[in-house]
């Protein structure tokens, strides 16, 4: 009893240190409605668009987990303000041997200099603890309007979200889907899936695209074949980036993210 009281006092101290608002925080070991395939991750669709969910991953203390989860929330808010993504692809194809190479490299950049300021304006709504996820913090960015979320998905007959096979279409938003294999910690798997979804947004709409290709015919005494090579570089600045939905496919242990940006 005394120990849990000490822990609670530590949380409050920690949150005050971070400058977050903690009024009416619900601290629990179990979530309400959750994202499909996640036992602990709250369903983001029950919250307005200015709410984010941060996941810490396991750390040695609860204080540290909450700290990391709040940082995760602030990072999502920073990503929504501006996220620059780029991608380069090199591929080579041969008429005899088929696809010989396909290499891709992508990056995403955001401004992390304002994280402290963002943390200061977050209002913590809920904290959930889980053995695998660590701390899950639901926080609201009070400076943004609480709009409706861009898409509320439904499940297909196979029990999987329909956005896995049919990317939603909207006049107001552009959507991207990304997936990732499982990393050791849940937060890393989620971040990797979010990154792939941002890259998918770039694939779907590039502000700038540089493309160079070549095709040559190789002819010698024994054979005649054709070679094709492509180099492409693209980039885009995503503003208003948000994670719309998540799914964990337990059969393949794959994490999926659906993200959106306003058009």
């Amino acid at each position, binding site marked *: 009893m005394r120990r849990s009281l000490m822990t609670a006092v530590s949380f409050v101290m920690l949150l005050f240190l971070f400058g977050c608002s903690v009024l009416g925080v619900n601290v629990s070991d179990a979530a309400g409605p959750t994202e499909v395939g996640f036992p602990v991750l709250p369903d983001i669709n029950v919250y307005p668009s200015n709410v984010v969910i941060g996941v810490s991953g396991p750390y040695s203390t609860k204080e540290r987990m909450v700290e990391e989860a709040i940082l995760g929330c602030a990072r999502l808010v920073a990503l929504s303000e501006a996220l620059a993504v780029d991608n380069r*692809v090199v*591929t080579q194809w041969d008429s005899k041997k088929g*696809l010989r190479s*396909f290499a*891709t490299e992508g990056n995403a950049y955001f401004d992390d200099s304002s994280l402290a300021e963002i943390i200061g304006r977050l209002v913590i709504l809920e904290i959930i603890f889980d053995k695998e996820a660590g701390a899950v913090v639901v926080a609201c960015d009070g400076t943004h309007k609480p709009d409706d979320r861009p898409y509320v998905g439904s499940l*297909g007959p196979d029990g999987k979200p329909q956005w896995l*096979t*049919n*990317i939603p279409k909207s006049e107001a938003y552009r959507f991207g889907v*990304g*997936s990732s294999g499982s990393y050791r910690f849940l937060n890393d798997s989620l971040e990797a899936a979010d990154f*792939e979804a941002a890259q*998918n947004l770039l*694939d*779907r*709409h*590039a*502000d*700038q*695209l*540089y*493309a*160079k*290709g070549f095709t040559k015919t190789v002819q010698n005494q024994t054979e005649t074949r054709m070679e094709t090579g*492509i180099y*492409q570089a*693209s980039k885009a600045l995503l503003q208003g980036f948000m994670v719309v939905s998540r799914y964990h496919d337990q059969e393949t242990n794959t994490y999926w993210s659906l993200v959106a940006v306003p058009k």
Partner: protein
Amino acid sequence: MLHILKLIALWRFCMKGRVVLIGVALVLILSGCTTGKSMDKVEPAKAVVLGMDGIPQPDWVYKTVSAQDRHYESGYGKMTDRQISIKRATVEAKNKIAEWVSTQVKEVIVTYVNDAGSGADRQTLDAMEAISLQVAEATLSGVTTEEMWIDAEGGVWVLCSIPLDNIEKNFEPAAAAVAEAFSENEAADAANAKMKDSFAAILKKSTN
């Protein structure tokens, strides 16, 4: 008595005739004989190809899509997983768009050189070639994935597009560079304007 027998025979004959008539009518109905329709109006049934999750194959997979203000290209990819297949298909579609733009630009440059009557000027031709390469490799803006379809085997098809206005905008700096290269030519300004016009015309023509 004889009259009665004759009447019975006549009745039997009539009955036989009626049976024959009914039989003929049945044969005509069963053989599907129609008198008001001509056979050449019947269209053959179109086979519907179903993709993953039973989604029918869209027309753009096998047909060229055209519009007044956009250019479309499709791409296909089948790799180890869905994510990379989408990327591969998108790369192919975007490359087709880049190649198409490059071809349009080269066509304009050739037309321009012929019109300007500079065929014999080696230096000018070299400059034109360098500029045309520069334009053909120019960065394209606003390339967007419009549609995606996954076939039954997991191969991914994507349809990408680019607004024609964006291509014209990309062409402007290069057109200005061409005008500069031809500054000694008295007809440079007029030819440059003509080149821009012909580029716009070729873009419009090729979408129809």
